[in-house]
């Protein structure tokens, strides 16, 4: 394989720095996908569980049949109208139902041409839905009492997740996952980055387990005890008090499909070493998922309030 020599690398970096669209990212040598949502959804679509050979959607696992279609959002709010995104008017919006435990998921499906380092970058924001007279839960929620600055909306936001579904030529399937848990299930702030210690249950595992599934099951790892903090330090993000102000945050996440391990996660000014974070593999080998390279983002509400994850833009790059 050809090696990039230094002058070419300098030129490449200068070209990226001079491009207003790419300058805010730090891509690895090859850009696989650049998604700005003024030009459509770029392959980010609703995740759904598998259905049977008759096309009968009743056979989809009950907790994987309502992950909601993503929206191209101008970030419209009741108080100011259109807020707009960071790179243009539109962001990709993933929205839950107003039901405690409901999860919305958008997925992007690729394959790997080689194994190596993969990086996912995005500018994102997260919000709870603004209240109306009918839907309001009052001025006090979780840890928050409205005081003119602090707003109960922040405690009504549960968690968002960046994750993958990966399978290589050896049939080994695994998920690298990072979740920002804003609140625990009692709506108390935790503000932690966490990861699952078990692989995601598959439709085959659930095929004869349907009676035990609930529609609000956490599909990534159902048991809250199977999640661990990446480190002990909470990360305070810029919710900006009310549900109608959006401030865009930078996220950069790297993992290595050669070693099937995490590398690091950067969110704004915090860089977390993820090399020690284990990546559980499925015990069984998989067929039909050769070189699977899926990315998904999800949002999960811990309150009866719609939760939203907005992506202004995303960039996927690799070192091959």
């Amino acid at each position, binding site marked *: 394989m050809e090696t990039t020599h230094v002058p070419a690398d300098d030129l490449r970096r200068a070209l990226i720095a001079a491009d207003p669209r790419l300058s805010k990212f730090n891509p690895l040598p090859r850009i696989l996908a650049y998604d700005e949502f003024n030009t459509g959804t770029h392959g980010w679509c609703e995740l759904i569980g598998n259905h049977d050979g008759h096309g009968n959607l009743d056979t989809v696992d009950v907790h994987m049949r309502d992950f909601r279609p993503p*929206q191209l959002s101008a970030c419209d709010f009741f108080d100011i109208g259109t807020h707009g995104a960071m790179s243009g008017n539109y962001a990709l919006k993933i929205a839950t139902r107003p039901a405690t435990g409901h999860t919305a998921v958008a997925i992007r499906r690729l394959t790997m041409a080689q194994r190596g380092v993969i990086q996912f970058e995005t500018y994102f924001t997260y919000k709870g839905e603004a209240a109306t007279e009918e839907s309001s839960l009052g001025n006090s929620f979780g840890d928050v009492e409205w005081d003119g600055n602090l707003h109960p909306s922040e405690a009504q936001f549960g968690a968002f997740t960046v994750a993958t579904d990966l399978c290589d030529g050896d049939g080994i399937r695994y998920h690298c996952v990072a979740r920002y848990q804003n609140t625990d299930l009692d709506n108390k702030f935790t503000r932690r980055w966490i990861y699952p210690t078990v692989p995601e249950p598959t439709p085959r595992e659930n095929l004869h387990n349907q009676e035990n599934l609930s529609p609000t099951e956490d599909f990534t790892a159902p048991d809250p005890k199977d999640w661990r903090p990446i480190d002990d330090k909470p990360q305070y993000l810029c919710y900006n008090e009310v549900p109608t102000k959006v401030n865009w945050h930078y996220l950069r996440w790297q993992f290595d499909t050669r070693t099937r391990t995490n590398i690091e996660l950067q969110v704004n000014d915090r860089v977390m070493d993820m090399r020690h974070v284990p990546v559980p593999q499925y015990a069984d080998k998989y067929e039909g998922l050769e070189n699977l390279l899926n990315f998904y983002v999800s949002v999960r509400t811990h309150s009866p309030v719609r939760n939203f994850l907005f992506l202004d833009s995303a960039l996927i790059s690799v070192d091959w």
Partner: protein
Amino acid sequence: MKHALTAVLERNTTFTADFATEPYEAGWAREARWFVRTLALEGEEPHLHLATQVSPDGLHWCDDETPVQVTTEPGLVTWRVQEFGHWLRLRATLRGGDPKAKVLIYLALKS
């Protein structure tokens, strides 16, 4: 090229009471078309009334100018919507004795 996007707002969902779909933001789209596939409609003379609703903020809703569609049997119905602002949803009313409707609801959007 124009943009096009299909969203599935309800999928094999069974309703026994009036309902509204989740809010869908589509300010980028110039035209929309609802497709409602009724898989089952049971009860005593069941009727499913479907009204297009619009909103300035995704929170407060009113019917738009599109005529209400009425379904009385399983099958596919469709109608078009234009000049709908930024938000769309469907308000459904079930009529008849012990009515029960199982539906798929598609929203097809184009710029």
